[in-house]
């Protein structure tokens, strides 16, 4: 059985500024004046990307803006032509048979691209018609999606007046309209309020449970962690790490952060904490706190408590954060994802 999505050594070099949809948020500024002496700047957006997404998986491409996530999605969805390398959807070579590839995919672009001249219902119905659905099928499916995405009361209004969140929900409903095997979502939850984000996650999981494959890009670690079964971390056009969120997090040494609060501060206590097994770093925090970086979390607590009570200090509060993808990204690149 072929993988749902596969790429082999994908490279993309833009000879002009990458378009906004595929370049990671840069506006389509005026093109630099042509100068024959100086060749136009070549921007390598992807430099040998190898991916494999199994059927029925929720796969996440995690990386900062401009890392190459959207370009990868663009190539897989027929909108960006690769400079070299091959991309497959199921057993179809995307750049050999684009029409066949397009039948298998649904795409939610990073920027809303709804048909402003149509109502919400018409957008879904025409989208279904493009994919050859008959009219009964179209109206039933459109109604169901409008209901699921909580858009029924606005179904017959032009989408021009919709809020950002509603447009995003509408874009996802449209991508699901023809029930594609593989659903691509490029930064699906940017700009959504937490409530809508949760609805979106629920719908994505629900769609995945029908056996559909989902590939999403995000620069939000929380989202990658909550949704994705497998992740590829991408930066500067390279995949720097790949695996399940747990595997990836386990790959960083001393990934746990324990934020401790004591009755009062004491220098000997901090020194004592630094000697506990698997603790990599201790930092004083505020008047009476300490941040402790360690290779384990909860199992350190008894030792901390006994070390503190031996010095006559009481532990008043503990917060343990597990190894995070943020820490992982920092570990691999020396930069924060948010930068």
């Amino acid at each position, binding site marked *: 059985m072929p993988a749902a999505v596969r790429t082999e050594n994908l490279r993309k070099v*833009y000879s002009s500024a*990458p*378009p906004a*949809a*595929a370049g990671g948020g840069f506006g*389509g500024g005026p093109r630099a004046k042509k100068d024959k002496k100086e060749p136009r700047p070549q921007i390598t957006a992807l430099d040998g990307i190898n991916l494999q997404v199994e059927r029925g998986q929720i796969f996440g491409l995690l990386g900062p803006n401009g890392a190459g996530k959207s370009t990868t999605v*663009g190539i897989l*969805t*027929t*909108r*960006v*032509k690769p400079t070299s390398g091959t991309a497959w959807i199921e057993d179809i070579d995307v750049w050999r048979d*684009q*029409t*066949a590839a*397009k*039948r298998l*995919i649904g*795409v939610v*672009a990073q*920027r809303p*691209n*709804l*048909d*402003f*001249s*149509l109502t919400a219902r*018409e*957008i879904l119905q*025409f*989208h279904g*018609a*493009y*994919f*050859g659905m008959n009219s009964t099928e179209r109206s039933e499916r459109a109604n169901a999606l409008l209901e699921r995405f909580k858009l029924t009361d606005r179904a017959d209004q032009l989408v021009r007046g919709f809020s950002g969140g509603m447009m995003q929900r509408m874009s996802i409903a*449209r991508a699901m309209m023809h029930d594609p095997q593989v659903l691509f979502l490029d930064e699906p939850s940017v700009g959504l309020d937490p409530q809508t984000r949760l609805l979106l996650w629920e719908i994505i999981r629900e769609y995945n449970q029908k056996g559909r494959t989902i590939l999403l890009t995000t620069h939000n670690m929380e989202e990658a962690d909550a949704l994705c079964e497998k992740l590829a971390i991408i930066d500067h056009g390279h995949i720097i790490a790949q695996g399940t969120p747990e595997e990836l997090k386990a790959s960083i040494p001393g990934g746990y952060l324990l934020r401790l609060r004591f009755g009062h501060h004491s220098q000997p206590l901090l020194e004592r904490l630094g000697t506990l097994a698997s603790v990599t770093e201790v930092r004083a925090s505020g008047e009476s706190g300490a941040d402790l970086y360690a290779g384990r979390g909860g199992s350190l607590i008894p030792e901390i408590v006994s070390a503190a009570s031996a010095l006559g200090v009481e532990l008043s509060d503990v917060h343990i954060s597990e190894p995070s993808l943020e820490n992982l990204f920092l570990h691999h690149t020396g930069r924060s994802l948010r930068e």
Partner: protein
Amino acid sequence: MNSKTFLALLARDARVARRNMIPLILQTFLQPLLFVFIFGRVMVGSGYMPVSYKSLLLPGIMAISMVFTGVWAVAMPLIGEFQFTREIEDRLLAPIDIAWVAVEKVVAGLIQATVTGVLVIPLAWIILRPGLQLHIANPWLLVAITLLVAGFSSCGGLALGCSVNQQHIGLMFSMVMTPMIFFGCTYYPWSALSNFPILQKIVLINPLAYASEGLRATLVPQFPHLSLPLILGALLGFDILLLVVGLRQFRNKAVS
């Protein structure tokens, strides 16, 4: 080609056109009919122009209206949809080769331009009635020329719409459309340029000249006009050239 998808794309454009019917009608017909009224009715009625000018003017007005409609119907949505709203993306992802998405736009523009051309004749006739002399000897020839004119206008719309940036729309109309109209043998027959031999040669690169002369040859053959084989050949050539250029530009825009 996937005909279901193609027809669905056309149906989408038809729905949008129907929704914008009234502004579309005003935009298409107001200017040419005012022109017909002032030059064909007022100027002739007050004796500044001979009565025969009414008949000479009509084919030119029809050509201008069709070209404006075709170019506008294809170029304006494309400029906006590629750059501003990006709404064309949904159609680019439809299961059909993207060239057909462009061809669909051309067909939609061709239909609009043809409808405009067909409606301008009776509307102008109402305004110009006494003294207007139309002699349609060969209706099939009129149909053929009308379709070729509609085709070059919508193919031209495709080529322009995929080459012009949003901030240059005004420039497109002032630098391309306006000279094309004034040097397009619209308000005068090509033979009237015989005293300006260089200009008379130059205007032959303008497809609108063949459109006006072609419609003149089929609607009011009593006036001198370019030869029919030349007109038909030139219009067909411009149709093909603009379609090829337009499709290439479209692909460049659609795929990065």
